[in-house]
């Protein structure tokens, strides 16, 4: 009987795969090509342009501006547009081309080390306190970096001028002190080890979609595999009785056979995703087994309680689609309305997707 069932798998699987091919192809297209323009870049909405005018066009200012621009937090948040005059900055802000403008007056950099504390001017079109804080923090970072470097250099020169050393030695010590202080400022982020407590934030949008669409593909496969189950059929049950075979044996054998077919389907998904360089981990070949067994068992329970394959298929397609949507299986949870995001937390399928995400990616 087991041999016959293995033969059934060989005959049934190509038929099932043909049905699932179209869905799998559409999923891969969305994951590999459509993801950026359907869901957009997660960070693009936070890009804000800020106009900057530095009256004193010194080397220090250039270095400082470049340093700030290259910081990850700044680069992903704002774009600094350098302008030649205060009027240009005001016009850019007025027209709405830039969300804010910064005017750094002449002698500002020198004032950082002399204690004069000249003020830089920040302009906003709207009274937006968030933008104000962002720009103010940026300016503070810039001032800190330049000021720290300059203070150390000036202090070093002042201390060394009383000593009996050559000017070249003094220059070398001053430069070294400056480099060290700037290196310290640049490396400040290393003082803290940051780790997000949000499990999802460690995965990219592409990884999340790959995992959720894989679960969706498994759930939707029941739509086809419902026709594989025969043990629920009255005629087969009668036949089973005549042969003295137990329904539980049929139930387990059919569940096992469907799980084998689902696993073969996952193997194909695994190979295709890795050919497309989506980096699915080999450990998932083991970790997906419980998920597949669970889906196959639910499919068996559905088929044995409802019996008619077409009804099971209809329920899987209809109810499965809604449940998958509400669990973030079709659209990443963070792109859904707040209410649905909260509701998803109560869905077992949502947690199943999280498990698959962790199984497929690190």
């Amino acid at each position, binding site marked *: *009987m087991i041999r016959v069932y293995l033969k*059934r798998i060989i*005959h*049934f699987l190509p038929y099932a795969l043909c049905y699932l091919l179209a869905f799998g192809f559409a999923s891969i297209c969305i994951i590999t090509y459509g993801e950026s323009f359907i869901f957009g870049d997660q960070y693009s909405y936070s890009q804000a342009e800020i106009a900057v005018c530095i009256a004193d066009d010194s080397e220090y200012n250039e270095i400082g501006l470049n340093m700030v621009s290259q910081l990850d937090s700044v680069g992903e948040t704002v774009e600094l547009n350098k302008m030649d005059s205060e009027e240009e900055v005001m016009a850019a802000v007025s027209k709405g081309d830039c969300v804010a403008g910064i005017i750094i007056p002449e002698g500002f950099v020198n004032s950082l080390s002399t204690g004069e504390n000249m003020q830089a001017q920040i302009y906003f079109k709207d009274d937006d306190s968030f933008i104000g804080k962002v720009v103010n923090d940026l300016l503070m970072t810039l001032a800190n970096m330049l000021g720290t470097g300059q203070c150390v250099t000036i202090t070093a020169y002042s201390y060394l001028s009383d000593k009996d050393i050559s000017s070249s030695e003094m220059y070398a010590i001053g430069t070294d002190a400056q480099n060290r202080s700037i290196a310290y400022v640049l490396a400040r982020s290393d003082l803290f080890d940051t780790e997000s407590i949000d499990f999802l934030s460690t995965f990219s949008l592409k990884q999340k979609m790959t995992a959720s669409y894989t679960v969706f593909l498994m759930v939707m496969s029941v739509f086809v595999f419902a026709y594989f189950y*025969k043990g629920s059929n009255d*005629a087969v*049950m009668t*036949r089973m009785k*005549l*042969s003295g075979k137990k329904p539980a044996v049929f139930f387990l054998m059919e569940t096992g056979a469907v799980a084998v077919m689902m696993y073969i389907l996952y193997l194909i998904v695994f190979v295709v995703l890795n050919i497309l360089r989506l980096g699915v981990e080999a450990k998932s070949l083991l970790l997906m087994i419980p998920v597949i067994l669970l889906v196959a068992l639910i499919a068996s329970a559905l088929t044995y309680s409802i019996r008619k394959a077409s009804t099971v298929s209809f329920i899987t397609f209809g109810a499965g689609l809604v449940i998958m949507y509400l669990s973030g299986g079709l659209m990443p949870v963070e792109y859904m309305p707040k209410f649905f995001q909260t509701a998803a937390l109560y869905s077992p399928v949502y947690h199943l997707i999280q498990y698959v995400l962790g199984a497929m990616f690190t």
Partner: protein
Amino acid sequence: MVDITNVALNYKKTVLTDVNIHAENGECVGLLGLNGSGKSTLLSAIAGIKKPASGIITCEGKIGFVTQENALIDELSALDNLRMWTPLSKEEIKKELTSSDVSALKVSEFVDVKVKRMSGGMKKRLALTSVLMEKPDILLLDEPLAGLDIPAKTDILNVIDSYRNGGGIVFVASHAEEVFAHCDKIFVLKDGKCSPLPDGVSVVQAIND
């Protein structure tokens, strides 16, 4: 022996009451009735699939039931379908198909054909063969001749005769007039009652009245 005493059955809108049928070994019982009269429900009750609302059904022996909906698996061949149920090897099954009573059903002629490529007649022959190979003591047939051509009908009726002559009990539910010529007892299921076909009344008259 099959003994049905004061049985009442409920199924959807059908209510069948006062069913009393007794069949000894070697007898063929015909169940005649319009669609929805409860023929299939009564056979299911005899097979033990459906529980009667009241009354007692006693069956002595192994029951083989060939339903209208077959138990065949479409993507497998006739041989593999038979292998599903029997511990016999391929060779033993092939030998059985040509030498035993089931040889009259001629399944050996299409043993390697997949069920999905079979005609209705071939499926009926295969389903009956599959059941008969288990050598049941009681055979329940639900519309065994529906949709069959004349040679197929003749073959199946011959097998019913041969099975009955071998001491088996047959219950056959059908609309087909020719089946009842092979029955020892005929019961008419009408208006929720199951009563013997009155003497002098033909099957056609019983259905039309």
